[in-house]
């Protein structure tokens, strides 16, 4: 009887088993990472907008507060995207000739709204309500990041359910006094957890309810 296989098969046969396990593990790792990567979550990926609107300039440079444009953030589920009219309150006075702002003026002229690309876009079956969050001391910064330092708007949070749960399970990690929700320079106290727990109690946040399915899905 002759050997069927080349002697190298001694190693190859065993290595292939190991390799198979490694490949399976690798694929698992790639999937794990891919779903959490910027490719999938769009974290830190600025989107092309009709106008390269700079939050940095308007917030840090001009000191405009979030609520000036996002008017319904304390009142409604939707924070509100400012109508062209809001832009024109200033831009009918300043930078009136800037080419960059032509779409704004065109919108105002033609009554055709501007079409922004949604940056923070939850799936349609997740019902997020801005008003309850900001009214209970969850600052803009916590989810949206340092918008005041963003020349172009981008996500800083993956907006995945596990990410939501992180805070819904322990809001004390992020909660702050309601007066500070628009403050990008807020520094949490050293004993944030203890302080946070106090605030949670003060604002009557029912933490155990926050992981109920019906809180976000209807």
């Amino acid at each position, binding site marked *: 009887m002759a050997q*069927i*296989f080349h002697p190298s098969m001694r190693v190859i*046969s065993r290595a292939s088993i190991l390799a198979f396990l490694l490949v399976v593990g690798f694929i698992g790792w790639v999937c*794990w990472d891919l*779903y959490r990567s910027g490719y999938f979550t769009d974290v830190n990926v600025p989107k092309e907008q009709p106008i390269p609107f700079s939050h940095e300039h308007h917030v840090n440079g001009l000191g405009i507060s979030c609520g000036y444009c996002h008017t319904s953030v304390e009142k409604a589920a939707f924070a509100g995207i400012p109508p062209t009219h809001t832009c024109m309150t200033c831009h009918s006075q300043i930078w009136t000739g800037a080419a960059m702002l032509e779409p704004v003026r065109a919108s105002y002229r033609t009554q055709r709204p501007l079409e922004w690309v949604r940056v923070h876009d939850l799936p349609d079956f997740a019902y997020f309500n801005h008003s309850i969050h900001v009214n209970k001391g969850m600052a803009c910064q916590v989810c949206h990041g340092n918008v005041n330092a963003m020349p172009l708007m981008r996500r800083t949070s*993956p907006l995945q*359910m*596990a*990410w939501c*749960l992180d805070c819904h399970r322990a809001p004390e990690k992020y909660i702050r006094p309601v007066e500070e929700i628009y403050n990008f320079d807020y520094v949490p106290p050293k004993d944030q957890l203890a302080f946070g727990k106090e605030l949670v109690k003060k604002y009557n946040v029912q933490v155990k309810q926050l992981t109920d399915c019906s809180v976000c899905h209807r």
Partner: protein
Amino acid sequence: MAEHKHTTLVEQPEPLVSPKETYGSITDKIAGDVLSTKTPKAMMITLAITSALLLVFVLAVGAVLLFGPGVWGNNNPVGWAFEITNFVWWVGIGHAGTLISAILLLLHQHWRNAINRFAEAMTLFAVMCAGLFPALHTGRQWLDYWLLPYPNTMGMWVNFRSPLIWDVFAVTTYLTVSFMFWFVGLIPDLAAMRDRAKKHWQKVIYGILAMGWRGSAHHWHRYEMSYLLLAGLATPLVVSVHSVVSFDFAVSLIPGWHATIFPPYFVAGAIYSGFAMVITLMIPARRWYKLESFITDRHLDYMAKVMLATGLIVFYGYLTELFFAYYSGSMYERFMMYNRIFGPYWWSYWLLIFCNGVTPQVLWFKKVRTNVALLFVISLIVNVGMWLERFVIVVTSLHRDFLPSSWDMFRPTIWDWSLYLGTIGFFVWLIYVFVRVMPMISIFEIKHLLPWRGRKIDTSADAA
């Protein structure tokens, strides 16, 4: 062992292997059938039919993936119908292999050696068919992987309270263990195939699969231990799998489902249907491949006896259900039984009693048990009966439950039938592939049954 008194096989009513067979002839016959390019003509004809069914299967799967479970006849009270009936039926069939391999091994039933390979392969394919149904019956089949507990960005896990999750674990465990059992059993035979193969590519393929098996005594020692352990593990597993499948029903509160008798009753039914299917497949295979030397009439006799025994247990189960319904004092339970017997699906109940309860009674007679043609017909009847049993449990329980306002009828559509018949095509097709590429009888285990000086083969314990 050596001091055992020498006994001849002549004392046995009929030897388990024809006395004219030798180690060499066994090997040449079984391996030769695989390596030969000739296929029996009858097999080619049935293969054509099977292939047509396979096409139907592809269409039926495509339809349900494309349009959803709405292509079937399921409706609001009857959320499960053919698909779960088929699932349970196939899982049940998938019980014979492991039972034969494991339980009969532990019980020193040597006659199992001739049929275990085939039955194990049948088990694998039946479980594959079975697994398709739960996977296809969900509305969003592309999300079936949500039934697996894996870390995800939703932070969600599965609900371990659900019998469907138990099913996932039980069926995948069963499939994995059955596959390992089958594969481990195949290793020495794959080596034999490697050594018999004429063509280099055949040698390579069988060689890779045999993993370099060389029949070393050291290896055999561990091998036998491992095989025994697997048998020991598979035995409770096989019992648990159909128990878990029965939990799908028993855990619910629907009259006709909510019954503590279900686990044993389901396991017995599974063995019953499994043996029926083994007989259904073995009889033509034995004939076409002329395997009468290995699968003797005595084998058929034993299988028929197992069928009779399990058939009686199942029949007892039917009687118990009647008694439970009466004794529960619950109007819902009583109505359920009444509805089974006299309701709009009365025919399925009576047919089931005929197929599963009445027909097997003829197996009390040895003449029937050894009449190949008759046995084949009986096995087919039992197969149908066991399908009806699941249909009765699934559909007639659901279609009239608590609130009469919701009562409705289930009417199967062409897609219900297509998928069912399609899986039969898929199943038989896989069996054919198996028969053509793998030894359908375990070569080394048959050899194990040949006596040699210094070892007797005591098959006196082989009584079903």
